[in-house]
């Protein structure tokens, strides 16, 4: 059963999903909220860019092999 979640709850789930797989219910709540919330569409795109650029910055993307002995 899905329920309405707030924008703030949405940011919490976006953060949580970096550590663990969301439950099916959480995933659905998240998707449904984002679908009809322009501010959260913007914010999740921002997080997406932030996370992917951060990986590049920290060298976690494709460069690990270089550093192994």
């Amino acid at each position, binding site marked *: 059963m899905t329920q309405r979640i*707030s*924008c703030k709850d949405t940011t919490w789930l976006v953060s949580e999903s*970096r550590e663990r797989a969301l439950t099916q219910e959480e995933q659905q709540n998240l998707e449904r909220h984002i679908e009809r919330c322009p*501010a959260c*569409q913007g914010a999740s795109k921002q997080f997406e860019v*932030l996370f992917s650029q951060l990986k590049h910055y920290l*060298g976690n993307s494709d460069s690990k092999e270089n550093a192994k*002995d």
Partner: protein
Amino acid sequence: MDSGLLKTIAEEAAGYRPVLYRMALTQLKNAAAAEDATQETLLAAIEKGASFEGRSSLRTWLFSILRFKILDVMRDQSKFKRFSAGYTGDRSESNDYEVGAIDALFDDCGCWAEPKDAWTNPHTVAERDAFFKVLESCMACLPERTSRAFLMREWLELETPEICLQLGVSPGNLRILLYRARMQLRLCMDLHWERN
């Protein structure tokens, strides 16, 4: 590789010493250990200069070498640490992620107080460098413990139980630290990153 190019790598790498040291110190909490890890990273970069083919930026390459140095030190340390059990059991296990700065972003119903523009990924080298420069200062503004937890997760890629052990925090508190770090970084980038 000719000696001229190696010399250039050595010189450029030395320029990253302060940021490497800062990253190492945040994780290792010990000036001597951080200095050693930094020094070993720079030496490894010079020794293995030939394997650096410019596939990634020099900074990226140095960070990935330092990452392994830090993980090695942590592994050695935790052999001793495990006996004294790191997690001391702080009490706030709830999902209480309410904090002033984050609260101010939302109205009473938990809706974003202001509209959010989607960012577009920086494409060119110059755009990316600009993004990284702001990202670096934004990360430097994170509170120390928040930054340490965040980089353990996103850079060292430790699993959450290992981070809880290293930091002596509960799983609930770690989730809050990581949430705050991400919220704060997004906000800082939104305020300071000049987009076209």
